[in-house]
């Protein structure tokens, strides 16, 4: 644990300091919204990592259903939990950005609603894993995750399919979309930093999950030994 803390604590702090510095000090001030637009860098990067985590959860769940490997189950839980955390930051920062720019905290438009539903799907996944008893929990959770992932492309496409309060896509949004070069450079750097941050959290959470699995099986073995003696 000490080794993990020695590696992870300074690394996480470094990644957060560098990304905050880039977003708050290096990025140019956006002409229309002013300084509050700087929320964009953390908002979109958190969203990207959330979707990336749910994709890993989807792949790991399919792998678990196919091979019944405990490692893929541990990866599925780890990525779902990290995804929920990043998706929560996405939603919180979205409301904090919406209030000064739109004049409202929240609106039930397609992008916001599908993202909230996505977050609730993965919260339900974690609740299911924590509170369901019996030997089929992992299989049920994996099947749930495979279907739950269907909301990810809906979230992505929502601002393309519907006219929403949420802005149109700035990347891959067709003609008229795009960013000023200064904003784009900082955005790509923040995205890369957050990807490393997300992978680091998944790795840490995966280590924790495998340690918990080992503890659980050690408890079971100790209980069996106690019964047989």
């Amino acid at each position: 644990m000490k080794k993990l803390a020695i590696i992870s604590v300074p690394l996480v702090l470094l990644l957060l300091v560098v990304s905050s510095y880039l977003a708050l000090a290096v990025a140019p001030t956006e002409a229309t919204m002013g300084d509050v637009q700087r929320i964009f860098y953390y908002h979109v990067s958190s969203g990207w990592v959330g979707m990336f985590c749910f994709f890993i959860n989807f792949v790991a769940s399919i792998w678990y259903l196919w091979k019944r490997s405990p490692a893929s189950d541990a990866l599925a839980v780890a990525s779902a939990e990290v995804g929920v955390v990043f998706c929560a930051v996405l939603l919180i920062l979205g409301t904090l950005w919406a209030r000064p720019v739109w004049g409202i905290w929240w609106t039930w438009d397609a992008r916001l609603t599908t993202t909230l539903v996505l977050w609730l799907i993965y919260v339900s996944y974690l609740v299911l894993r924590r509170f369901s008893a019996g030997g089929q929990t992992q299989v049920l959770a994996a099947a749930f995750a495979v279907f739950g992932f269907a909301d990810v492309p809906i979230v992505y496409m929502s601002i393309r399919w519907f006219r929403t309060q949420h802005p149109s896509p700035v990347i891959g949004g067709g003609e008229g979309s795009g960013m000023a070069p200064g904003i784009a450079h900082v955005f790509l750097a923040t995205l890369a930093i957050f990807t490393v941050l997300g992978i680091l959290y998944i790795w840490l959470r995966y280590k924790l999950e495998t340690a918990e699995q080992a503890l659980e099986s050690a408890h079971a073995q100790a209980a069996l030994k106690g019964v047989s003696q």
Partner: protein
Amino acid sequence: MSSIGFLKIAYILAWVVYVGYLGRILLRMKKVEEEMKELERGK
């Protein structure tokens, strides 16, 4: 509140969530390791 206020709160909250989550993982890891050691001592 000014828009700078919203910006500050957004970054502070993001930091609190990310650092807090790291702390939670490390604390849980410590607890699991202690429990494992205790179990091995009991054998």
